[in-house]
């Protein structure tokens, strides 16, 4: 398996871990027992603003841990250099992730147009962000394996 494929798999796993872990943390500490907070815009704003730095730091830490683990197990460094093929694949994957996020955004808007509670829209935003990131990484793995 190419280094880039390993990194994409790591991204999928870490996104699931971070988004899932953060969602459980927020639910158990701030939502459980006080459901009125779900319709508070200020709560959702803070939740999203905290998620961004938490996600960045967690991704960096997981990446470093994975690189060390990979070196110990395979005695090979992860290939981090990029060339024209990597950029081509990246562009195609980003295009797919944009489409997935736009679909999620549309669903979120439809939920509001249909009169659903505000929290449905924010949950759809989180889900579409996660799905977009996952779709992008899976697309990269497919392009690396199948070719472009």
């Amino acid at each position: 398996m190419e280094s880039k494929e390993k990194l994409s798999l790591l991204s999928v796993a870490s996104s699931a871990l971070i988004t899932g872990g953060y969602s459980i943390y927020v639910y158990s500490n701030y939502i459980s027992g006080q459901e009125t907070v779900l319709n508070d815009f200020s709560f959702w704003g803070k939740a999203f603003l905290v998620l961004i730095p938490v996600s960045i730091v967690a991704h960096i830490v997981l990446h470093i841990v994975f690189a060390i683990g990979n070196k110990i197990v395979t005695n090979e460094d992860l290939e981090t250099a990029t060339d024209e093929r990597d950029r081509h694949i990246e562009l195609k994957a980003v295009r797919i992730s944009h489409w997935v996020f736009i679909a999620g955004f549309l669903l979120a808007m439809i939920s509001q147009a249909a009169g659903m509670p505000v929290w449905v829209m924010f949950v759809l935003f989180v889900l579409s962000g996660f799905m977009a990131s996952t779709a992008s990484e899976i697309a990269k793995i497919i392009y690396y394996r199948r070719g472009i």
Partner: protein
Amino acid sequence: MSKAPKLKSCVITNNIRKLRFHANEMTQQELADKTGVTRQTIVAIENGKYFPTLELAFRIAALFNTPLEDVFIVRFS
């Protein structure tokens, strides 16, 4: 009057593996280093999983001191 060939689809193959062999058994890593790409990209090109940009194709041809059409062979169907 001869009929113009249909150019709708084509199959592109390459002789990079053979050219490497004739260039003192150059390794994929050496070729990658000399052309400024990763070894995985050379592997993908040799296996027909990636078609390089014109710039990289010319760099590979220049490295082997060979015309481009001897490195990449195109067959129209």
